[in-house]
C-alpha cells in the first residue's frame, strides 16, 4: 500500500471509530469509495480481532519442548494425557481410584505465578466454598494442592465438551437455541452468585458444552485464588461503583465482585444480542423469498427483548 494513502486510511479509521455506530455509514460514504471501503473493512476486521492481541501483556509463550517427558502424577492423580496449555499453565486429563469408582478430572497445573505459596494459601481459604458449588451447570472443584515440584494445581470435574461458541457454530444453533443455552449458563452463574461466589473470568473457553447439549462452567472462583491483587481487588473502583444499582448497594466486597461479574454477564448478553441482531438482519433479507412476510422477524425480536430484560 502507498504510505500516503495508508496515512489517510489510518486517520479516517480513528475518526470513524470515535463516532457512534449510527453515524458511521454516513461518514464512510463521505470519504470517497476506495478509502471508505478500506476503512470499513478495517472496522469489520477489528470486530473479529483475535483476543490474543487484546490483552495488556501479550505474546508467545516459550516452554520446554515436546521432547520433555510428561508428568506422571499430580498429587493423587494419575496423568492420562495433556488437554491443553495456555498462558496460565498446562491442563492434564487425569484419573484416580476412589473406593470402587474411577474419578476423572481435568487437572490444571499453574505455572508462572510469582508466589505459589500465596496461591496455595488462598486456595485453602476458598476450597470449602468452591467445593460446595454443586450445580449441574458448574464443573465441580474436586481437589487442589501443590505438585511435588512446588506448583499449585486444581482438579476439576472432567467435562468432555467444546467451547460454547464452537458448539453453537458446529451445531448451527438458531437464535432460539442459542438463547436457551445462554439462559442455562445464566442459571449456573446465578446459582453461584447466590452463594456469593463470582467467577471473575467468564469467557467462551471456560464454558464447555457436552455432547448432550449441557453447558458447564469451568474454573469457577479460580481466578480469585490466582489473583495477584489483594483480597479486595477492584473494590474501590470509582467507575464501577457509580454504576451500582439498588439491588447491589449493600456493603461488602463480595457483592461488589458479584456486580463485577454481573456486568460481564450483561456484556456477554449484549454480544449475543449483537449476533442475534445480525442474524435477524440476514433473516429479514431471506424472509421475503421464503414466506413473503416480516411476521417472523417481529416474533424473534420479542423473544430477544424478554431474554435481555433480566
Amino acid at each position, binding site marked *: 500500500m502507498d504510505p500516503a494513502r495508508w496515512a489517510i486510511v489510518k486517520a479516517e479509521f480513528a475518526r470513524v471509530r470515535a463516532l457512534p455506530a449510527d453515524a458511521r455509514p454516513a461518514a464512510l460514504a463521505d470519504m470517497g469509495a476506495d478509502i471508505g471501503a478500506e476503512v470499513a473493512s478495517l472496522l469489520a476486521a477489528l470486530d*473479529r*480481532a483475535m483476543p490474543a*492481541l487484546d490483552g*495488556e*501483556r501479550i*505474546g508467545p*509463550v516459550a*516452554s520446554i519442548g*515436546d521432547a520433555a517427558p510428561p508428568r506422571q502424577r499430580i498429587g493423587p492423580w494419575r496423568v492420562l494425557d495433556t488437554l491443553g496449555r495456555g498462558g496460565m499453565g498446562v491442563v492434564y486429563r487425569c484419573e484416580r481410584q476412589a473406593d470402587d469408582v474411577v474419578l476423572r478430572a481435568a487437572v490444571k497445573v499453574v505455572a508462572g505465578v510469582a508466589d505459589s505459596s500465596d496461591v496455595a494459601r488462598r486456595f485453602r481459604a476458598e476450597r470449602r466454598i468452591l467445593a460446595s458449588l454443586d450445580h449441574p451447570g458448574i464443573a465441580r472443584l474436586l481437589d487442589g494442592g501443590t505438585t511435588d515440584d512446588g506448583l499449585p494445581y486444581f482438579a476439576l470435574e472432567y467435562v468432555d465438551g467444546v467451547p460454547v461458541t464452537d458448539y453453537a457454530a458446529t451445531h448451527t444453533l438458531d437464535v432460539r437455541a442459542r438463547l436457551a443455552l445462554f439462559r442455562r449458563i445464566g442459571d449456573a452463574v446465578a446459582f453461584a452468585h447466590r452463594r456469593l461466589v463470582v467467577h471473575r473470568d467468564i469467557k467462551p473457553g471456560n464454558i464447555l458444552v457436552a455432547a448432550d447439549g449441557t453447558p458447564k462452567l469451568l474454573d469457577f472462583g479460580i481466578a480469585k485464588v490466582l489473583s495477584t491483587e489483594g483480597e479486595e481487588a477492584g473494590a474501590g473502583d470509582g467507575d464501577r461503583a457509580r454504576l451500582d444499582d439498588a439491588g447491589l448497594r449493600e456493603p461488602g466486597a463480595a457483592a461488589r465482585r458479584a456486580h463485577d461479574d454481573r456486568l460481564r454477564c450483561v456484556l456477554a448478553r449484549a454480544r449475543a444480542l449483537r449476533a442475534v441482531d445480525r442474524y435477524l438482519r*440476514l433473516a429479514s433479507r431471506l424472509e421475503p423469498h421464503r414466506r413473503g412476510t416480516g411476521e417472523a422477524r417481529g416474533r424473534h425480536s420479542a423473544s430477544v427483548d424478554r431474554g435481555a430484560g433480566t
Partner: protein
Amino acid sequence: MADITDLLQRWQDGNADAFDELVPRVYDELRALAARLLRNERPGHLLDTGALVHEAYLRLVDQTRMSWSGRAHFFGAAATAMRRILVDQARRRLADKRGAGAIHEDIDVAVTLSVEPNLDVLAVHEALSALADFDHELSRLVELRYFAGLTLDETANVMQVSPQTISRDWTVARAWLSRRLGEDGGPGAPAGLP
C-alpha cells in the same frame, strides 16, 4: 567485545551500527537465558517472552550506568532479537515436521513456542514485514507488543510517543493484522453464523 550496556549507550547516542551489533548479542543472551530458566523448571513450564525480556534486562544491563531511556532502548533491541528467535524456532519446527530430518543443535533447550491462542508466529512475522513496507512505526509497535510482550505504556516509552497515540495506533494495528491474518483463513477469521 563491548558489553551490552556500552552498546546500548552508543546506540542511544545515535550510533546505528551499535543496534546491529546489539541485536545478535541480545539474541544469544535471550536464548541462553531461556535455556537456563527452563532447565531448572519441570516439563510443561511456560515462560512468556515478556517475562524473559524483562529478566534479561535485569541480568544483562548494568543498572547503575543505565538511564530510563536506555531501558527503553534495550527493550527495542530485545523485541527484534526475540522476534528472530521465535521465527527461527518456528522455521526449524516446520522443517522437522516436514521430515527434513534436521537435528536440533539445541535439543536440550527445545524452546518450543506455544502461542496463545494458536497465533502463528510465522504468519505474524510475514504480516509485520509487509506492514513495515508502508508503516514502519506500526510494524515496530506490534513487534514490541507481540514479540517482547511489552505493555502499552512500556511500548509508548520505547517509541517515545504518548500512551494515547500508542493506544490509538494499536487499535489500527490490530484491525490490520486481523484482516491480514483472516485472509488466509487463520484464527482471525470470523465465526460463522447459522
